């Protein structure tokens, strides 16, 4: 944990709202992205992100400052996402693209493999494929890729064992294999 983050967390623990505001600024993109990929809706993700930070503020007394902050807040966000998904089960929705995609224009420069797959249509296919995974597989996959989290942290966030993370991730990748085969082939270096 960075020194400035530690200092902020100490101030937040004392109830300093200004410090909390800075902390939110540090984590808001990551929390929103995590929520977006877990719930598949930008609007729901915004609500989840807001509630994540509000709950974090009021639960600061439960946060152990000797441990990293990121897994703690990701755990709150992930739990809220799972609640959101349970509530939404009765009303399935189509996955929407996050706003950066609508502005993405890769025609001006030579496309790298990563840029190639970020074309709207392809991107949408990948998002759809991820959303079709069972929730427990999707959670592991998203946590692994969104910030390259090690299995130990993913296990901590999801309250499970590293062996279980390894198994779920392997199965999630196997399930995606057929869906993403063609896209992956196009993007291979």
């Amino acid at each position: 944990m960075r020194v400035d983050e530690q200092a902020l967390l100490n101030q937040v623990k004392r109830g300093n709202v200004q410090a909390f505001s800075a902390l939110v600024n540090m984590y808001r993109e990551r929390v929103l992205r995590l929520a977006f990929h877990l719930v598949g809706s930008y609007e729901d993700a915004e609500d989840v992100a807001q509630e994540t930070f509000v709950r974090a503020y009021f639960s600061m007394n439960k946060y152990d400052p000797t441990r990293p902050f990121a897994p703690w807040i990701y755990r709150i966000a992930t739990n809220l996402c799972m609640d959101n998904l349970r509530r939404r089960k009765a009303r399935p929705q189509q996955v929407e693209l996050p706003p950066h995609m609508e502005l993405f224009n890769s025609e001006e420069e030579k496309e790298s493999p990563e840029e190639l797959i970020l074309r709207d249509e392809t991107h949408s296919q990948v998002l759809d494929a991820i959303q079709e995974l069972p929730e427990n597989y999707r959670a592991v996959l998203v946590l692994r890729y969104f910030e390259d989290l090690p299995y130990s942290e993913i296990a901590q966030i999801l309250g499970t064992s590293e062996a279980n993370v390894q198994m779920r991730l392997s199965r999630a990748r196997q399930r995606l294999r057929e869906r993403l085969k063609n896209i992956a082939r196009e993007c291979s270096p």
Partner: protein
Amino acid sequence: MNCRTVRTLLSAYIDGELTAAQAASVEAHLDQCSECQTALAELKSQDLVLRAVLAKPIAVSPLLTQRVISEVQRRQAEKAQARFGFFRLPFAKPALLAAAVLALIVISVFAFSPKSARVVAVQGKPLCSTASHTGWNHLRSGMRVSDGTRVKTAIGEMATIRWPDGSEVVIGAQTDATALPESKPSGVVLNRGLIYARIRPQQLGFYVRGPQATATVLGTEFWLEARGNATSLFVIRGKVRFANAAGQVVVTRWKKSTAVAGRAPSPLQPTSPLDANSFWWLRHSQPRR
């Protein structure tokens, strides 16, 4: 190690999560098995695709932080109100009890009345004047906002007003605006600066009138900016009608339109919180150090 075992370990292998002994066994098998080599290559290609999608930064509404802080302050106010509960009061002191009950009634009627728009968050020291008191005072969290309340903010200052139905209007930095929460439809007159509004569906017809055009809500979240000789509308979700005497457009999510005097609002252009105007907002909305 057979193919079946290796396939279950390939995922952890590309993540570098196997023990040295396991990785060595997998590699020994891969040296001899072309099918498992193909499976590994496919997994690596898929890894590239997933990484590019899931690690790509996403656009964040620039006011997410403000909304979080507003919500924290609202819940703190609720908790504070709950602490004045009748049964916790010291019954041994009747005078204090009477005063506390009276205070509670006053607070309920004036401070927490669901029928009034209220200031729910303030950053810096914005100024306000009301229709009845035209002099300038400091705007404070909890203040009631009536028709004609004018708010002025400087660099780094912001104020959030919550309508009785939960709709929120954030008055950005370097802004001069007049709120009309009691009118039907309710709205805000933006003389200069930036207004962000997240409007509940029941506030249909809510408007923000800028110098060059008026934005009218069709159920949505948006911000309106009046700078120089132009008024620009950025819609985050839902739909907003953007009109002046020369014409109108309906602006949909993640689109913007700009109006200058004497000309109809421009056709829709794509936008996001990541474009330059939003950076302007962010820069001016950071707390003073």
